[in-house]
Structure formats: structure tokens, C-alpha cells
């Protein structure tokens, strides 16, 4: 019997199921741990940032690696899941960390650059997530859609900076993430010119 790769659509379903299960596992793990709020907040924040960063790697890697080129459309799944992890992250922050104390949240946003960066990144990602479907692409046309989606190159750096500033001392991981991001941005810039 020859093993043939699964159809792309099936692979995408598997990716979606996998990322959904991973999120559910993170929620379960936080529920059985000593502190639901910080564990779920940090889990969704960290892996949301990873997914968003990975979504930026698809285009540059697709030029070199055939495997990535064949799976280029998975970029959307990864990006949208990164956003969904971010939604849970934000809900945890609003509902569990601040228990809907809006004035306290406003103080926090105004007084902390890293919280402000997180909020800005989320706002920037909203229209991108909303238009991450074929229907929007057709409706707005390829070029305007593409222009809108270059916002990822603002939103993801904001996410990484937010992640960096949230650390107390061990910043190796966010520095590595920032390094990958800089490489992608430089590549993007040189490719555009």
C-alpha cells in the first residue's frame, strides 16, 4: 500500500481540530492548577502570539520550501486561530482578572504601555479576522483586501512587544520571537522594493 498524503482540506480540518483541542487542554490544565486566571491568561497569550508569528512565516518560507508552498492556504487557519486564542486571552483579562471593573481596566490601559499595546494589537486584528474568508476577498477585491491585511505587520510586532514587556526577567523567548519577526520584516521590505 502506498501512503498518499491526505487531501489539503482534510489536513486543514485536522489542524483546526488540533488547535481547538490544544486550547481546551490549556483551559483544563488551568482549571486544575492553583491559579486559573494567570495560567489561562498566559497560556492563551503565549500560544496566540506563537500562532500569529507562524502565520507570518508562511509567505517567505513558501518561496524556498515546496511543502510550505503546497500548504500556503493554511496560513489563514493559523492566523485565525492565533486571533481566537487572543479572544480567549482578552476575555480572561476582562472577565476573570478584572471581573468587569471597566474603570480599573481603563486605568490599567492608560497607565501601562504593554497593556495598551495588547489592546491596540487586538483592535488591529479584528478587521483582519473578520475578513479572513473567501467571501470578503471576493467582495472587496484582491488588492484592497491585501492592503488591509498588511496590517498584520503592525499588529504582530505589537503582540510580540506586549509579550516581551509582560515578562518579569526571562526574556530569551520573546527576544527569539522578535528576532524571527525582524527577519520576516526585513525580507518583506526587501521583497517589496
Amino acid at each position, binding site marked *: 500500500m502506498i501512503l498518499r498524503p491526505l487531501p489539503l482540506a482534510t489536513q486543514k480540518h485536522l489542524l483546526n481540530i488540533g488547535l481547538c483541542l490544544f486550547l481546551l487542554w490549556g483551559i483544563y490544565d488551568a482549571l486544575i492548577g492553583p*491559579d486559573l486566571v494567570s495560567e489561562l491568561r498566559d497560556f492563551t497569550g503565549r500560544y496566540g502570539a506563537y500562532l500569529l508569528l507562524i502565520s507570518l512565516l508562511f509567505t517567505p518560507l513558501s518561496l524556498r520550501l515546496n511543502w510550505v508552498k503546497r500548504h500556503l492556504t493554511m496560513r489563514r487557519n493559523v492566523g485565525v486561530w492565533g486571533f481566537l486564542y487572543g479572544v480567549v486571552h482578552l476575555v480572561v483579562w476582562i472577565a476573570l482578572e478584572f*471581573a*468587569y471593573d471597566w474603570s480599573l481596566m481603563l*486605568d490599567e490601559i492608560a497607565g*501601562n504601555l504593554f497593556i495598551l499595546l495588547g489592546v491596540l494589537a487586538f483592535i488591529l486584528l479584528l478587521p483582519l479576522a473578520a475578513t479572513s474568508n473567501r467571501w470578503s476577498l471576493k467582495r472587496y477585491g484582491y488588492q484592497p483586501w491585501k492592503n488591509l491585511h498588511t496590517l498584520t505587520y503592525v499588529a504582530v510586532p505589537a503582540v510580540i512587544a506586549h509579550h516581551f514587556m509582560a515578562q518579569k*526577567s526571562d526574556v530569551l523567548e520573546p527576544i527569539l520571537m522578535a528576532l524571527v519577526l525582524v527577519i520576516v520584516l526585513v525580507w518583506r521590505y526587501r521583497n517589496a522594493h
Partner: protein
Amino acid sequence: MPIKSSTITPEKIYKKRRTLIAAGLGVLALPIVDKGYAWFNGKSQENSMFLPPQPTTGEQQQKSLELTPLETITGYNNYYEFGYGKDDPAKADKTLITSPWTVEIGGVGADKPGLYDIADIKGEHAIENHIYRFRCVEAWSMVIPWNGIKLADMIKAAKPNSRAKYVRFITLNDTQQMPNAGWANGPYVEGLTIEEAMNPLTLMATGVYDKPLEQQNGAPIRLVVPWKYGFKSSKSIVKIELVEHMPQNTWWKQNDREYGFYANVNPQFDHPRWSQATERVIGKTGRQPTLLFNGYANEVAHLYPDKNNRLFFY
């Protein structure tokens, strides 16, 4: 039989089927999440995430010190020698050898320096019980029932002289017993002024909830300074030195812009990256206001004459 056109799902809705399913599932999940939330917060009907939080004043906080459960105290820790994650110290292998254990008390300020066995320390002094608020610089807090002895009693035994202006505390730094020992390029160092060290609030804790300290809480003996940020209360202490000059503590050395020597809790002075006005009680949701000197102003405010000097509060 022909299919009636009215039974066919319109294309627009059909195309949104995934969104609809997701939204439906989300709405269905809400009561479950809310139940889980209430269960997590002590099976109370008042703890619904759909109800606004009850405001807490400083006075209410003073009166009701609701103890943090032991599982939380032993499960959520900053002890970098056992890993950077909050649950790393609890999950780490129990490699710390806490018996025999000696604490060396010395330095130029001690006329009677000596080596004290942990068993002798526990035997010689009456073990006191103190319920203290514990406030981390990361803006979270617990309420912990400590068992321990007054640091002042240990210091008095070493006969402090006039050169004893500061006290320096050294934590064990052993790669054999601690997987991440040496993360700070040397042992974890903390320091207090002699007045702070002699204050009756300052404890050398040997237990929590009448049980010996666990490895992740700083077994077998640790410092507890309840009016300062948690990093001042260093763990697994092997050496106490009475010195003339202000010792440089580990976090001050790590990042002098964000951490200093005094690190007294103050809701008015923010950390460079986050607000210190409120705190998250571990295991609970929402935040409560942080109190000046963590609620111990009556006992310690006299030690810091200048309330506006930032030096005292970071």
C-alpha cells in the same frame, strides 16, 4: 417527492453554517463556564461572572483575612532555583535536603557568630503563628498562616554590636539540589536594615498551616517580611550576616531600574511596567485595592519618615 423550496436552507445562511455552529456552541458553553467559575470560587451563588464584583475597601480587607488554601500556597510559587514557571517549583523533584540544615549567623556586626542547627532553632524558640498578607511585586497576593520565630530573637542570640547596620540573607545555591541554581550568577541575596530585621513583624518561618515548609515555599527556614514585596522574603536561608553597608539584593542587581533595596508595598508608586494600585488574590477573580505597607502601616510606617521618597517603594 419534490423538495419544497421553503425547506432548503438559503445559501447565505448555509455559508455561515460554521459561524452559526460556533456561536451556538459558545452560547451553550456559557452556563457551564459560569458553573465552573462559581465552583472554582467556592461553590457560591454570588460568584457568577455575570454579576458585578463586590467592591472591597481597605478596611474590609483588614478585617477579613480569608486564608489562601494550602494547595494554592504550595502550588503557585516564584522560586527560580527550581524553575521560572509558577508551577515549576511545585512540580520539581524533591531534591532539597532540609535535614540536616544549618544557618550561619555572622558578619562584622555579630559579637557571637555561630552555626545553628535547624532543629536547635526550632527547639530553643517558641514557634509563633502569624497570619500575614503576602503581596508579590507582580501584583498578586495571598493570605498565609505562617509558623515561625521572630528574626529578632535569632539576631539577639548573635549579640549584635554597633556595626550591625544591615542584615544580609543568603539562600542555598546548590546545583545538586536545585535544577536552576545559579540563575542569578550566584546565590539569591536579600537585605534589610537592622531596624527592619528587629521589627516584631519580621519572621523566620519554618512552617505553613502547622506543617513544615515544603521545598517550593523555601524549606526548611525562610524570611517573611509582610510589608514588603514578596521577593524580599527570601527562601531556604543558609547564612545571615550582620553588616555595616547596604547589601545589594539580587533583584536590585538584576534590574536597578525596576527593583531596589526597600521594596515597601505602596499602591501609589507603580512598577515601571505595571500598576501597583490593585492586586489579584490568587485563586480568585477580580482585583482588590493594595494597601500602603501592605496593611501594616501602623507597625512600620515610622521606619520610613519620607513618604514621598520613591527609594523606599521600589
